[in-house]
């Protein structure tokens, strides 16, 4: 699966990326590819107006906040299903 953090390098965006890596590692997902989209034009193409956001396989699943670890785990696992 492909996970993309959408956000232009603000503190919260980096936090979200770190948290995502943590969750992926804990879930033991091997084929995860994590990217960080900082280009605004690209971010807008996802229809996102508040950062940080997270897209899984091209679909936006989270906008405008750094979720709790438990919430992020729920989001990632339900995207896997």
């Amino acid at each position: 699966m492909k996970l993309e953090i959408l956000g232009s390098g603000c503190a919260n965006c980096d936090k979200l990326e770190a948290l995502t890596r943590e969750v992926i590692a804990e879930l033991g997902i091997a084929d995860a590819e994590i990217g960080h989209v900082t280009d605004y034009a690209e971010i807008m193409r996802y229809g996102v107006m508040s950062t940080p956001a997270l897209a899984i396989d091209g679909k936006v699943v989270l906008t405008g906040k750094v979720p709790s670890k438990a919430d992020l785990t729920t989001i990632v696992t339900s995207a896997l299903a």
Partner: protein
Amino acid sequence: MSTDAVTSAGRTGGAPSLASADETAAAREPDATAQTTPSPASTPAIPACACDTAAGHGAAAGRGSPGGSGRASRWAARVPLWLWLALAVGAWGVAWHWLAPFIDWLAYDVLRLGDGRFGSAVAFFIYDVPKVMLLLVAVVFGVGILRSFFSPERTRHLLAGRRELVGNVMASGLGIATPFCTCSAIPLFLGFVEAGVPLGVTFSFLIAAPMINEVALVLLAGLFGWQVAALYVGTGLFIAITAGWIVGRLGMERYIQDWVRDIRMGESASEEKLDWNGRVRYALQAVRDIVGKVWLYVVLGIAVGAAIHGYVPENFMAGIMGESAWWSVPAGVLMGVPMYSNAAGIIPIVEALLEKGAALGTVLAFMMAVIGLSLPEIIILRKVLRWQLIAVFVGVVAAGILGVGYLFNLVL
């Protein structure tokens, strides 16, 4: 003068940055920039912005709630949320009611604080900290509930195709109700422009959103009464509406950075409908985030306020910041623009200044300049706006704040 600083700061912000240079981002960058115009769109360095808020709740905030997870859900499963809420409201009411007598008892019977400088400073501190905290929790929760009805996407939809004036008024009001954080100013701006929201209307939103702050509103109401709080909201709206309208009238669309025009926005993820449980959870999350973030500033701000209260002689400020000193309003605004503090921290200082004889208009102008016009936001906006437009934006808003300051000094 300030524009020079802005341009150079903007440039440093735009310089190739080390921030978040992890391999994947670096690997992505070339193809992303190749698709669009060169640099400015992809500058990763963003100055620290104080995002108080758990901004969005769009795509997925509600997602975690039904199942929830961990301890919180096992807890909530046993006792219905409304019961917790009722208990919390009750406890809050009791605490609020008994606060003054309790602190009096604590200060004068237990700690035996005298009337001296130290005593009155400490009394000020131990009275204001719990009072401000109680107010803060209540207001942030209430605003959290209100915000759960709004999102940037919805606001964009509401504002698209609005004419000026009506649009300016709506945008200013929505600026209060929509979750907003300086970090998201760019995507929000891009989304508005792309949806055809007029530039002036967009500015009304961008001015109102940070300037009319729920934390400031409640603290003003609690510490100085509803009249002052209403003045603050009323004048804030007035500035946002007129400044936005003026920017629109000036027809400065050509001073938007070129790459902005090429932005095409994708379909927004569909928003999940929140039920009342979800709204309450959203508001509770906001309380956790915001109070967790600002409590230290509040305590520090109150400590400064207490020191001024105890140690600065009565009417000391009257000469410097009183009504007779005409230059104090512009001085307050000039000082306030580069300063950046969240609203919660600035209010206790405001309180102490007022008490020592500073004029209300001067103090309000200073406060609005601090929270309404901030250097980080200006630097961020530099990526989408040319400096001419930034200068007009800062100038018009500063002029509005000046006008409000003089008006209050005259009227009150």
